[in-house]
């Protein structure tokens, strides 16, 4: 019953989305506002249908309805309750449902916000949003239906991929997809602007908050993915330059470029063509990302199964890119605006360089990701392009971006006078250089880390100087530090929200540099009662225990960890044996700290518990990545607050 009902709901939602897209576009062409109303109702209908479909699937999961193939493949009778709900997005078909549902939700929000405020652009925005939604509903109906029936109904399901039984699984896809789908709205506005010819700054001002929120969720999704990788996959790293990781990183890069570049367009009314290109690229890259994950053309730890779905995504990607760029080419004349620059040392130049570096990084990551395919196409030889390559080629660009983060916000528009430069940068430069020299004197030899440290101190110094001066100015009129800061943050929330976000990036940068440079590891076999030492930590192997959980068997190693300062802690790394998996899954245990994490993986062990092979890592500054994420959150919230500068 459920498969048929679900399928019917999906098909109906698809028809409504298709109708809505056509009606919205038609309402402008034919000049009939009734069509627009119909399109809005169709949008509501599609969202309702998707919500129903989701609830139906969750119901099927909770009642162990194995007549639904998706349920049978992704849970079994032992799967814990909450994972049965989140298994909804645990595999291919369900992930599309989640994506489509979020897109439908965003469409409804857009309907509410813009139907009165933007009568010109709105119908086209709705048409594009519903068109994209229709595509995802089509995927849900034809190549990857979540409601396929399984015959005969098995007694028990296969079970969720054990790596997905984790809190990261609950949040990572949700955050990531909120980010991906969020970029559809600025794209829709860009298309509307091109179609209607209203290619001025209007669409940018409207979509500013959408872009920031989407960008934030994408950042959050990437960080949670790193956290998940770190504490589940057992290799002690948080980013592997895996093709699918890259595919999520690329829209983040172009999205960041877009976020900055629109600031120039808002101020100086230039770079229109470029900004439109950026937003098309960003949306295109989100589609490319989901294509890569689902088509199986490039192997990845994330890749879902292969099938016809890849063809659908490639076709849609082609349609979107060709269509959007054709629209752009058609309107190219309206987009030409001559920019003026008084000096190379100006904020405009810094923004241009910012865009250059971010787009260069995007190109690098993209080229490295598809090069194996290119090599096979041209020479028939398979090569790998992995972490060593990406780390090497991206470092100069990321260091350059750090530098720009410090210079950009403080240098003047149009032309920076020597006075401006002196006032704003002499102290931070001195601070950065001083910090590097001090670190060198204290024994830090790694040149890259030194450079990173110098840049971070420079940026932090520049921001602090600006803040102190701004607060100082307010204090002169009588406010205390607190009130002055609060006033500053509220009045200039965009600027200082940006500062806090940059601060978050700094913290993350330090975390990355520190963890790469200073983490140590060892792999060895210990006998029971013996210990291993690393970086001042002493890890003692106590014993092995075995247990049975609801859907797996577990062998746990009990280890005591101590160093001079802290109380001894017990770590319990384990090996989990799931019946549906071919090899055991390593379950890492760790002790997190502000500066150091102790990370333990259980390898082989003797049946009698007499000895075990372990991998012990002491990772440094990894926690700063997660802290940086928190700071990013604060900064984003600040940046999207309603403007207090102008009267309502």
């Amino acid at each position: 019953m459920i498969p048929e009902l679900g399928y019917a709901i999906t098909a109906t939602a698809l028809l409504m989305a298709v109708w809505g897209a056509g009606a919205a576009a038609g309402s402008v062409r034919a000049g009939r506002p009734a069509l627009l109303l119909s399109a809005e109702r169709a949008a509501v209908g599609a969202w309702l249908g998707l919500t129903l479909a989701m609830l139906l699937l969750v119901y099927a999961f909770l009642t162990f309805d194995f007549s639904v193939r998706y349920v049978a493949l992704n849970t079994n009778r032992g799967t814990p309750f909450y994972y049965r709900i989140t298994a909804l997005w645990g595999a291919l078909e369900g992930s599309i449902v989640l994506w489509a549902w979020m897109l439908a939700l965003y469409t409804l929000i857009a309907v509410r916000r813009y139907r009165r405020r933007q009568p010109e652009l709105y119908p086209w925005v709705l048409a594009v949003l519903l068109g994209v939604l229709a595509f995802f509903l089509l995927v849900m109906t034809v190549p990857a239906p979540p409601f396929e029936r399984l015959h005969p109904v098995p007694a028990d399901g296969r079970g969720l991929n054990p790596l997905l039984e984790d809190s990261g699984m609950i949040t990572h896809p949700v955050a990531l997809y909120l980010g991906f789908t969020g970029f559809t709205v600025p794209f829709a506005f860009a298309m509307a602007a091109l179609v209607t010819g209203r290619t001025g700054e209007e669409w940018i001002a409207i979509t500013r908050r959408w872009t920031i929120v989407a960008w934030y969720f994408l950042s959050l999704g990437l960080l949670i993915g790193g956290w998940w990788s770190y504490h589940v996959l057992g290799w002690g790293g948080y980013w592997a330059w895996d093709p699918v990781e890259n595919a999520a990183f690329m829209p983040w890069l172009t999205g960041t470029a877009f976020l900055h570049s629109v600031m120039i367009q808002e101020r100086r009314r230039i770079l229109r063509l470029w900004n439109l290109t950026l937003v098309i690229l960003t949306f295109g890259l989100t589609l490319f990302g989901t294509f890569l994950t689902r088509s199986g053309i490039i192997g990845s730890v994330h890749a879902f199964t292969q099938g016809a779905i890849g063809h659908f995504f490639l076709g849609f990607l082609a349609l979107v890119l060709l269509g959007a760029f054709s629209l752009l080419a058609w309107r190219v004349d309206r987009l030409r605006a001559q920019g003026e620059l008084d000096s190379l040392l100006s904020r405009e130049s810094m923004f241009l360089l910012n865009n250059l570096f971010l787009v260069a990084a995007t190109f690098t990551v993209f080229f490295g990701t598809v090069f194996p395919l290119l090599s096979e196409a041209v020479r028939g030889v398979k090569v790998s392009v992995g972490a060593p390559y990406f780390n090497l080629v991206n470092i100069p660009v990321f260091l350059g971006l750090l530098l720009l983060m410090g210079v950009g916000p403080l240098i003047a528009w149009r032309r920076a006078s020597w006075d401006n430069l002196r006032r704003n940068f002499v102290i931070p430069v001195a601070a950065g250089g001083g910090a590097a020299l001090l670190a060198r004197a204290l024994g830090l030899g790694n040149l890259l880390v030194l450079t990173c440290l110098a840049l971070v101190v420079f940026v932090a110094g520049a921001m602090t100087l600006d803040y102190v001066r701004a607060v100082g100015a307010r204090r002169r009129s009588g406010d205390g530090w607190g009130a002055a800061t609060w006033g500053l943050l509220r009045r200039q929330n965009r600027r200082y929200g940006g500062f806090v976000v940059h601060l978050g990036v700094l913290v993350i940068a330090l975390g990355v540099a520190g963890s790469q440079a200073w983490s140590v590891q060892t792999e060895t076999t210990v006998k029971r009662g013996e210990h291993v030492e690393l970086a001042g930590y002493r890890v003692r192997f106590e014993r092995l225990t075995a247990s049975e959980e609801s859907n797996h068997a577990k062998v746990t190693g009990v280890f005591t960890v101590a160093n001079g300062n802290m109380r001894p802690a017990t770590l319990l790394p384990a090996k989990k044996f799931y019946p549906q998996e071919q090899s055991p899954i390593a379950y890492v245990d760790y002790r997190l700290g502000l500066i150091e994490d102790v990370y333990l993986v259980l390898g082989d062990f003797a049946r009698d518990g007499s000895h075990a092979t372990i991998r012990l890592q002491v990772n440094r500054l990894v926690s700063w990545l997660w802290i940086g994420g928190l700071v990013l959150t604060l900064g984003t919230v600040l940046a999207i607050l309603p403007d207090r500068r102008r009267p309502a």
Partner: protein
Amino acid sequence: MTARVALRAGIPLAVVPLLLLLAYGFRTDPRAIPTPLIGKPAAPFSLTTFAGEPVSLDGLRGRVVVLNFWASWCVPACYDEAPVLERGWRAWRDRGVTLVGVNIQDTEDAARQFLARFDHTFPNAPDLGGRVSVDYGVYGVPETFFIDRAGRVRAKHVGAVTDQVFERHVRALAEEPS
């Protein structure tokens, strides 16, 4: 005018090569790694079978050798091909062909159970430490190598072997002049 039109058309057309490359991707399998060993001398190995007997490549010089890598946890492929291998062994053992099974990353009990289940009569040995599997560039199970009488690797089959595949390769190598 035409130059401008060309430039304008160029913008959308610039994405076409990329789309073509991605479409090409559908024809490739990222998980299939071509082996560089075809035509090269097969790596020597010296193992002890589950029955306690020694088996080595040098000892089999002059015979066609079919080297099969398997594991008891390799479901369903190794289970599908096991009867095929036993049939092939029984058909060709007197015609100058030897089949050797190499068990990787497995436990002794599970391996013995597998052998008993399929009543394998050809030599099977565990590859402790994985030296032999890495020597042959094995990246998954099951994989089967067809080695000629002179000790060169002539073919590699990834995935479960079928009767036709076995027959085709073995016949070709067996019928070669010594």
